[in-house]
C-alpha cells in the first residue's frame, strides 16, 4: 500500500531524510523518532505535500509523483497541528472537504454525521472553528482525514489535545480500519500507544531509518528480548538521559 524507495530530502545543506526505504502493507505502522529526526518531512513527502529530491513513492499502486491526483484519492493525512479555516463553521468545513474529495452527497452527510457522533462534535458543528478548543480542532482535522474513507491514512501525533475518551475511540476506529484492510501510518512520541497499537514500527534517526519491524523483531535484533520499547528507542537514537536530570536536581 505504501512503497517508499530511496527517498531523500535536503533543506539547504541539512539532510532531513536520507535514502529512506519502506514497504508497508495493510497494517498499523508506527513511525518513531526524536524531535527533528525527519518524521514529519517523510510524511509530507508521502502525502504529496513536499516533493522529494530523489526517489519514488507509491501509494496504493499509484506513483505519487507521476499520478498525484489518483494517488491522493486513496490517502488521508491529519497533520500534527490542525490548521483549519477558522472563519468557517465545523459543518461548512467538513462539507467543503467532502466536496473537494468528490464524495457524493448522501454518503458525505452520512459519514459526517457518524464521525461527528464518534468524536462527540454534533452539538458544536454549527459554531465557527475559531471558537473551538485545541482538542475540538484536532477532532475536526481527524474527521476531515477519515471522511472520504481513504485506503491509506497518515496521522502525525493524532492524540495530542484529545480527551481520553476520544483517544480510546480513535484507537478503536483505527484498529477497525486496519482489520478492514486499510493502512494506518502513524507518527507518535508516546511509546506506550505505539507498542499497544502497532503491527510494525519504524525508527528514524537523523533522517535515516535505523530499525524497522515488529516490536519483538526489534527487541530480538537489539539483543534485548525482554527490554522495553523505550530503552531500545533510546539506545537506537543515542539519546542519553539521566545524567542531565541528575545534574539539574543536584544543582537545585
Amino acid at each position, binding site marked *: 500500500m505504501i512503497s517508499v524507495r530511496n527517498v531523500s530530502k535536503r533543506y539547504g545543506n541539512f539532510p532531513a531524510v536520507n535514502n529512506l526505504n519502506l514497504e508497508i502493507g495493510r497494517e498499523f505502522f508506527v513511525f518513531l523518532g526524536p524531535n527533528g529526526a525527519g518524521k514529519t518531512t517523510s510524511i509530507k513527502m508521502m*502525502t504529496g505535500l513536499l516533493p522529494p529530491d530523489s526517489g519514488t513513492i507509491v501509494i496504493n499502486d499509484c506513483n505519487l509523483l507521476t499520478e498525484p*491526483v489518483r494517488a491522493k484519492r486513496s490517502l488521508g493525512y491529519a497533520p500534527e497541528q490542525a*490548521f483549519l*479555516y477558522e*472563519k468557517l463553521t465545523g459543518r*461548512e468545513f467538513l462539507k*467543503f472537504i467532502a466536496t473537494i474529495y468528490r464524495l*457524493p452527497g448522501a454518503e*458525505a452527510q452520512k459519514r459526517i454525521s457518524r464521525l461527528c457522533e464518534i468524536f462527540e462534535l454534533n452539538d458544536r458543528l454549527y459554531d465557527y472553528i*475559531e471558537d473551538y478548543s485545541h482538542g475540538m480542532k484536532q477532532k475536526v482535522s481527524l474527521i476531515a482525514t477519515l471522511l472520504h474513507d481513504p485506503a491509506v491514512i497518515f496521522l502525525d501525533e493524532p492524540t495530542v489535545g484529545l480527551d481520553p475518551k476520544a483517544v480510546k475511540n480513535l484507537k478503536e476506529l483505527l484498529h477497525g480500519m486496519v482489520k478492514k484492510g486499510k493502512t494506518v501510518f502513524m507518527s507518535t512520541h508516546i511509546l506506550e500507544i505505539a507498542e499497544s497499537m502497532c503491527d510494525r514500527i519504524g525508527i528514524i534517526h537523523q533522517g535515516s531509518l535505523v530499525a524497522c519491524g515488529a516490536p519483538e523483531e526489534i527487541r530480538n535484533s537489539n539483543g534485548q528480548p525482554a527490554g522495553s520499547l523505550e530503552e531500545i528507542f533510546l539506545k537506537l537514537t543515542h539519546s542519553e538521559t539521566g545524567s542531565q536530570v541528575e545534574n539539574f536536581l543536584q544543582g537545585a
Partner: protein
Amino acid sequence: MLFNLLYNRLNLALYSLRNYKNNKARGILVRFIVMLIIPYWIFSTSRELFSAWHAVPGFNVMVIIHFIALLLTGIFILLIISGVPQALHFNFLAPDSILLSALPLESLVIKKYRFWEIYFSNSSVFFLFGLPVIAAALVVVKVSLPAVILLLAGLLLLLVIPTGIASLFSLLIARFLPVKRTKNFSSLIMGIMIIGLWAFMQFFRLSRLDPFSGEFDADLFNRLVQTPEMNLSRFLPPHWAARVLSGLVTDNLQQAMIPLVLLLLAAVVIYELTIRLADQIDKYAGYQTGGAVRAARQKPAEPGIPFAQVVQSRHVIRAMVERDLKLYFRDSRFVTQIFFYFSLFLVLPFLLREPFTAANETFAHYAPFTCMLFATIFMAGGLTARGIPLEKRAMNYNRLAPNTDSIYLLAKFGTGFLLTTAALFFGILILVVLEHSPAHIILQAVILLLFNTFGAAAIGLAIGVIHTNFNWDNPRQMLTDNGNIILNIAGMVYLGGGILAFVTGVKLSGTGLALIFFSIYTLVCCLLGIRLALLRVPKIEAAL
C-alpha cells in the same frame, strides 16, 4: 512592576521595528516613511495654510485656535471609536493574557498596564496626523518653549480620556456581546469611517481655506471663525486643550491653566474609574461574562445548499469560491478592504475626470470609465494575489485533495474576478445614473473593463503564488515585501501595455480595432499569468 511591563512592551515594539520580516532595510525604510515623512508633509502643508492666514491683514489668531479645536474634536471622536476594538483586544483577546495572569502581579497592575497599552496603541493616529498640525500652528504663532511643554502635557492628558471612554465601552460590551465578533464589527465600522473620511478628503481641498488661492471659499472660512464659539462643543475636552493653546498664544496663563487643570482632573478620574471598574469586574463577574461564555449556535432551520449527488470539477470550484467568499466576508479586515475597493470605483472616476478631460476633450466621455481601469487592476490583482495566502496553512487541504492545480487556481481566479466584476458593475451603475453616458460608450467600457479584469486577476494570481506568505497576522503581510511592490509595478506595466494596445488600435483604424487589440492583449496577459501560476503552484508546499 508597571514600569517593567511597559519597558518590556517598548522593547517588543522596537524589536518588531528592527526585525521587519526578512527584509530589514526596506522594512525600516517603509516605517521611516510612515513615521516621519507623512507627519512632515502634514506639518509643512499646515504651516503653509497657517502662514497664509497669518499674512492676511487683520489676522485673528482665533482662526487657528478654532481650526485646532475642530481637528482635536474630530480626532477625539475617532480615538473613542478606534479605541473600542483596541480595548476589546487588549482587555479580552490579547494572547499574552494568560502569561500575565500567571505572573505574581496584582490584578490592578495588569489593568493599568492594559490601559497604557491601549493608550499608546490607539493614540498613534493623533501623533501621526494631529500633532504635526498643532506643531505647525505653534511655529506660525511663535509660542515659547515652556508654553509648548505645557500644551504637550495638556494633549497627553487629553488622550487619556478617549482611551478611558473606549475601555469603559469595551467593559460594557463584553458583558452583553461576544467579544471577538464585536471587535470585528467595531473594526469594520472604524474601517468604513476611515474610508469615508478618505473619500471625503479626496474632494475637500485645503486650498478652499487659503485666502491666497483661487479656490478660496469665504463662507467656509467665516464658518470656521465663528462656529466653535456658538455650540456646545466647547464643553468637550478637545476644546479645553484648544483653550490651553489659546491662553498660551495670548500670554494669558490663567486662561491656559484652568482648562489644563480640568483636563488633568478628567484624565485622572476616567483613568481611575476605568482600571478599578475593570479590576472589580474581573474579580466578581469573571473576565468574559457576556462574550466567551455562550451557548452553542442553534442548528439553522434551512440546511443551506445541499450536497451535490455527483461531484464534478465545477462543484469543487464552486465550493472553493464559496469558501473564499466566506473567509473574506467573515473577517472585518477584508470587508473593510473590499469596501475600500468599492469606494475606489466611486471616487476615482470623479477625482481623475478633470485632469483626463483637460488633456483631451474628445476623451471626456471615456474619462470616468478609464479611471476605473486603475480600480479594476488594484482590486482584481490585489484580491487574487491575496487569495492564495488567504487560507493560511489550511491550504494544505487543497494540496492533499485529489484535484489538479488548475482547479485550485481557477477557483482563486474566479473569486477575484467575481468580486471585482461586482464592484465594477456597481461603479458603472452609479456613473450611468449620474453622468447619463451614451449607451455605446457604456457598452465599450464594460467590454474593456471586463477584459482588463481578466488580465489583472491572472497577473495577481501569478504574483500571489510566487510571493505568498502563509504566516500572516495582518492582511498587509499576506504577500512578501517584494510581492507587494512587484504586484503594484506589474499592475502599472500591465495598464501601460493595455493603453498602448488601445491607442495603437485607435490610430490604425478606430475604436473597434482598439477594442480588439486591447482584448487580445489582456487575454494574452491572462493566459501568461495563469500559466506562470500553474508552473509555480507545486512549489507552494515549501512555504507550509
